[in-house]
């Protein structure tokens, strides 16, 4: 069953008249993970933000975004707000700018959860504690009393994942969640994502330019270039027998680094 269907999504910048995304259509199956890959400027993030309807005011989108048969493009802003977070949850690239810098993390978490579920403080604390422990964050209470700048990027990323765990959304949209992280935190965050899927069985859209991470986590792949989807398919066929030249180029450049590394490590 398709949980999300995007039909003929076209996104235009009204200031310049430039079309950012041309007629893209894709489907997300229940419980699947769809990866969107491409270079910077190819329109990956704009696609995500269009689904969440979080684009800037001068960016117009047309087409149909059907979430469980309901067209998100026709909802009012008030109805859309209810969907965000509870049904569609977005995990952003930069943890530092995703949280409110003027208050401690706990305030942000409480605000979100009260808005969606109306839980009491003790209930929130209990649930958040459990979720944060499950993403390998030690001393959750202490962390909730810290400001974003006191925590590392990997930790903030994991707090966002923990919040997603508590919200139990139907779809998680992860926009380059591992790009800003170093090797160790990247590995841990990817592990968390894999577990998140296993535990909740939710559907996921995973945006990345790192094919190594995508290969580990995704079932299906969309390849985007200059606002167009140029290739789609399941993970095996895309990486082994890509039809489009650009996909082959992306795969081959990634392989050059990896192969060199494997040769040194004697893992060929």
């Amino acid at each position, binding site marked *: 069953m398709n949980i999300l269907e995007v039909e003929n999504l076209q996104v235009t910048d009204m200031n310049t008249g430039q079309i950012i995304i041309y007629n893209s259509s894709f489907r997300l199956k229940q419980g699947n993970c769809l990866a969107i890959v491409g270079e910077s400027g190819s329109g990956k993030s704009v696609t995500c933000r269009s689904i969440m309807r979080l684009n800037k005011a001068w960016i117009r989108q047309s087409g149909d975004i059907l979430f469980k048969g309901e067209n998100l493009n026709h909802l009012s802003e008030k109805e859309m707000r209810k969907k965000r977070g509870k049904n569609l949850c977005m995990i952003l690239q930069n943890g530092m700018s995703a949280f409110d810098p003027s208050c401690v993390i706990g305030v942000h978490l409480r605000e979100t959860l009260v808005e969606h579920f109306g839980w009491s403080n003790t209930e929130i604390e209990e649930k958040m504690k459990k979720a944060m422990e499950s993403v390998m964050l030690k001393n959750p209470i202490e962390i909730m009393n810290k400001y974003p700048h006191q925590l590392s990027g990997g930790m903030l990323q994991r707090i966002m994942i923990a919040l997603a765990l508590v919200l139990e959304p139907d779809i998680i949209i992860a926009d380059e969640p591992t790009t800003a992280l170093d090797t160790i935190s990247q590995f841990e965050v990817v592990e968390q994502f894999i577990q998140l899927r296993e535990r909740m069985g939710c559907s996921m859209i995973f945006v990345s330019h790192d094919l190594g991470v995508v290969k580990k986590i995704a079932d299906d792949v969309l390849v985007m270039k200059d606002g167009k989807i140029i290739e789609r398919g399941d993970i095996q066929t895309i990486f082994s027998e890509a039809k489009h030249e650009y996909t082959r180029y992306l795969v081959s450049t990634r392989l050059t680094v990896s192969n060199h*590394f494997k040769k040194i490590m004697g893992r060929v």
Partner: protein
Amino acid sequence: MLKVDRVEKSYKKGGLFSREKQKILKNVSFECRSGECLGIIGESGSGKSTLGRLIVGIEKPDRGTVLFEGKNIQDRKVRVGNISAVFQDYTSSINPFFTVEEAIMEPLKGQKKGQKEIQSKIDHLLNQVGLDPSYRKKYPHELSGGEAQRVCIARAISTEPKCILLDEAISSLDVSVQIQVLDLLKKLKKSYNMSYIFITHDIQAAAYICDRVIFFRNGQIEEMVKIEHLKDVQSEYARKLLQMIITF
């Protein structure tokens, strides 16, 4: 050629009147030979960028010395034209009011050279980093990430330095562009016979370009190893790091 000798550095921690200090670098010593590419690998917060700033002389060490060909790096005359740097954030490393040609010209102004010579040099430099002369009049915001980083590299090699510090120079680029820049750096290293100090958290990229790597953790050198011997690292930390790499 470049010798870092028992360097220590600490920063003030916390509030305005706090006297508490946090040690960033603890007794670091190593040497970079001429024509060598030395990788420094570490997690975020390990102090590798601080070490980089000490190497190019932007900051002073609390204790210890950084020597470049036997002379102290804090002396500007030692640094000028001999050592340059490329940083991670390409958008903020070029003056937004400068065109590409002005940006590349900046370090050349100090040298006594004719206007004609400089002009032909810019063409040559742009050519070498794989950009054509039509880029000369462009401003930084008109460039893509890869192009801007190439301009930064062109600027860094304009004085034909003996050593370049690359502080996460490729980390914010797309994987496919990373390869292009790495290949470019390899090519330039050969033709100019420079040494690189390559600071990164990406071990795979380091393995691609470096001759030797240092594993850096909590302000200390955990292990130094030749790239051919990367697979038989001794320390536990280095092993853990190598296991966590997501290969393709």
